[in-house]
């Protein structure tokens, strides 16, 4: 029973990460892509950590995986904020459609 539950949670996690990746590739704008990356991937990571701790069963690994998730959360929020702030400083959003360039600075 536990394995079945863990499997479904794992699949859900993989789906969210897949959604985040598709979002990053398809969405036109830096800001939209940041949304996709941070939100979907963090949720996906959480679900994967939950399923792994279910599979493993020991509370120690559950705590370790929780710490992993918290660190990933902290890192991704701060970096997403800095990227958004950095891109707004270089190309202020004009409001009339997506403003897009890749990180190397050459306009796509």
């Amino acid at each position, binding site marked *: 029973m536990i394995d079945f539950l863990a499997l479904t949670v794992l699949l859900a996690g993989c789906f969210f990460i897949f959604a985040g990746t598709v979002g990053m590739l398809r969405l036109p704008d830096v800001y939209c892509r940041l949304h996709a990356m941070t939100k979907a991937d963090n949720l996906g990571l959480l679900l994967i950590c939950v399923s792994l701790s279910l599979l493993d069963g020991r509370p120690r690994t559950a705590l370790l995986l929780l710490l992993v998730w918290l*660190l990933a959360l902290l890192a991704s929020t701060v970096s997403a904020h800095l990227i958004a702030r950095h891109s707004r400083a270089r190309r202020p959003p004009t409001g009339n459609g997506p403003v897009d360039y890749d990180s*190397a600075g050459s306009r796509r």
Partner: protein
Amino acid sequence: MTAAVVVDILLGLILVGLAAQVAIGKHLFRAIVFYVAFGLAMALIWSRLGAPDLALADAAIGAGLTGALMMVAFRQLVEIDPKQSQAQVTRGSALAVVIAVLAAGMVATIGLTALSLERQPGNAGLQVLATLPDTGLGNPITGVLLAFRGFDTLIEMTVLLTAFVGSRVITTRSRLSVTTISGFELPLVRTLVAVILPLAVLIGMHLLWIGSDQPGGAFQAGSVLAGSGVLLLLTGTLLPAPHSRALVRLALVVGVGALCMLVLAPLLQGKVPMAYLGRGSLLFAETAMMVSIAVTLTLLFAGSPSLKAGR
């Protein structure tokens, strides 16, 4: 085709895909980012092969620090001449492809024929596992690195010191490079430092302490601390200082000095050079090595003789 083989093939494909992006990718900055991803995929493969020490080391040093060093070097290139650093100076050539395929073929045949020969385990490895209990250590890698083949580690720490002194030859002539990121004064960034710094130091000490019995040790601990040093430099908590200070110079040298003592101290007691003096001596040497590695790698990132407090 068991599940393990499928996982291996997937991991292999990820690794080769990332390596292709690094070697053939168009943009230089993107190649560096893919190299960091390649380092992390490599750490995955090390853990798949059952070598956790290497997974830790490759993630911390191979992906983390090498990537950080390359990015700060790339940033200096962009600062000097923005357009020049994007220049696509690659000229595709069929000959290079032929040579590359031949090299890959050579390595593949060497590896596969070596695999196909009847391979009995190396007796050096067997002896390591056999004599490990005498040293009271649990982790065979730390046993090899510090007790049995400790002299290699001494020279390797000297190589790290040489890399730093060598880069001092070059950086004494140029201005100090700015290492802080834009927007480093944000309160958000300060909370990040406030949370991650103590945690990184804790993880570093933990890796050092369990190093003699479980995967860990001086190199992994030193590189985790160097990672937190890089974080401090990026967020302006620490800034590169132009003039070197005695304490920093001592910290650079203490690792190699401790290992020299490990070699020469047994002579005073009439024993063979580098005779095993018990776990305490190893822990002392590992702590000194951790300090040396952390300070050296952080200063290599900062490109300056020493550091000073930010605000």
